[in-house]
């Protein structure tokens, strides 16, 4: 999925002074590119990801996903875009503790209307991809951090998204798990026509991407 941002502004007014996190951001990401967005903490990397993920609206500007300006879409349409075209991976995994590994992965497919049997079949394939078939019936609370993040990645791929948004996917992991997760992301990127945008402050993680962009003072610049 091609991404195009034009003059995107976003300001938060949580404290006494409004915080302008995005100040006229322009960006073009061709379909199938693996992009890492880096920058110091609090510079708006996650905010940019939430805007791209249709979880938030910009104050100004256009956000094109494919040929559609999602900044103009209503919430119902954005729900559908999130479900069918986007995948999310969070730093704190965000798996549902009441559900098993298999059920967590099946959930987006069932939300999209797949039958229970069909979604479980596809979830098993994703479990093979992340090499976690044996843990499929475990509750997620019993998994390690690296395993949880792999399950979260599998869940994000459930509905065959065109854009994967990963917010500090290795931020809570040790170095061994970090390598494992980055390998999984690389493998997925290599095997599918998938655009990946990964927010990270870890240079090692950023080095796995095709392209690195730095967000500073509300503006984007190419790192290499």
């Amino acid at each position, binding site marked *: 999925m091609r991404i195009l941002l034009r003059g995107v502004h976003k300001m938060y007014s949580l404290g006494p002074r409004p915080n302008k996190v995005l100040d006229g951001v322009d960006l073009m990401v061709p379909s199938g590119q693996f992009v890492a967005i880096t920058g110091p903490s609090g510079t708006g990397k996650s905010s940019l990801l939430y805007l791209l993920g249709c979880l938030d609206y910009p104050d100004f500007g256009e956000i094109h996903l494919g040929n559609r300006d999602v900044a103009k879409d209503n919430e119902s349409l954005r*729900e559908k875009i999130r479900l069918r075209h986007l995948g999310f991976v969070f730093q704190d995994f965000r798996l549902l503790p009441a559900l098993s590994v298999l059920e967590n992965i*099946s959930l987006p497919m069932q939300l999209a209307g797949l039958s229970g049997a069909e979604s479980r079949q596809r979830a098993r394939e994703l479990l093979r991809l992340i090499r976690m078939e044996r843990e499929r019936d475990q509750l997620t609370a019993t998994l390690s951090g690296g395993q949880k993040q792999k399950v979260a990645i599998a869940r994000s791929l459930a509905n065959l998204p065109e854009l994967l948004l990963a917010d500090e996917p290795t931020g809570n992991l040790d170095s061994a798990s970090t390598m494992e997760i980055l390998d999984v992301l690389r493998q997925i990127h290599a095997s599918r026509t998938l655009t990946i945008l990964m927010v990270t402050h870890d240079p090692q993680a950023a080095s796995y991407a095709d392209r690195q962009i730095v967000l500073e003072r509300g503006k984007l610049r190419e790192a290499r």
Partner: protein
Amino acid sequence: MIAGLAFRNVLRNKERSLLTLVGVVLAIGSFVALVSLAAGFTQRVERELGSREVHIYVTAGRGSTLPASPLSGAGGGGQVLPLELKELLKVPGVRSVTPILRTSLDGSRSVIPVIAMPLEDSEIVFKGAQFSSKPGQLNDRFPMDGLQPQSSPSPLAGPVGLVTPTPAPGAEPSPGPSAESGPRKAPPNALLVVGQGLAREVKEALSGGGPLVIEEMAFQVGADVAGDGFLDYTILAPIEPFLLQRDSRGVHEYWITLDSEGKVQQTQAAVQKVVEDFLLREKDRGDYAGARKIRVLNRREYLSSARDYLGYGWLLQVAVSMVGVLIAITASMNTMLMSTYERLGEYATLRAVGASRRVIAMTIIYEAIFLNVTGGLLGLLFGFLATGVLDKAVAILLEIPYPMAGVTPVLLLQALALSFVVGLVGAVIPIFIVSRIDLVAQLRKGM
């Protein structure tokens, strides 16, 4: 999956869910128990009125049309219909006109209703009833036609209070209280027909084998009857001694049976005309100060009038049980609110992975309904048991000899539907809160 998630959410905080469940069980149980009293009573009224072969009722204006029961008010509210009407009501198409007086047993058993009527008519008006002896043969036929409001001396005036009753065949002769100190004696052969339920449940308590005392007159039991509604718990007495006792002031109702059910409307109009003419004549003469208004009702109108009386009782019981239901709604809403606040992060995640607001709302509704309908089902069981206890308690406290409560399938469905509604209402505020969450703020917070 969503239903499964909701179900597991209920189980995630077992103690809290259990406490809510207890609240719902108590609320639904008390609803079932309380409303069953009204439902059971209504059911009995409808069954009895439906089983009577009575097509037209002539009743005093403000008198209750409830069948003989403690709630109908023994004595029919004090208004009476003149005895002369009996013959006048025999318009073409009328098979029989049965005068009715409502009264009750004397003393501590005054809640036991007595219908005083010509007993030979009881086989006609209670068409499905099973009598152990022919009621018409229990008493010497008494000529109603001879009784007039000012008639004196009455053919039976002398013997009242002096004649020893003749025991029913097979009945133990009882000496009975003396004429000086105890009740007077009813006329010879004046025997009663007692409902089988009454006979079975309170036989000993009723009389201890001795006479039954009604309006200070002693009677013996001559037969029993099994029938619908209250009949099983009613005493049928010959009307004549009461007319003499009351100096023939009149009766509470006339029950009219027609030759053919097809002419009810037409005959009702004819009876109405007779009644209006009678009242006009009485007014002109100025010698009748009885009922100001006489109602002529067909079966449907009579039942509807009875339902009006029942409606107040039903409303009262529903209102009392609704207090419990409101408490259950509050408990359910509180549980759902706490559960929702704890899971705002999860709901934000669900939204992020593509769940619509409708799906989130459904998750909350399923959770609330699982909790409340489970409570509702257990509440039905509790209500069923509580109904038995309440029935006994009411019977003891009010000295009502028959089971009042009736747990009907409709009542059970209503109670279950109520638990469903409690769940739905309990989910409203949590849904509103979740629909307004700031997704980004929740996702930044972590789970």
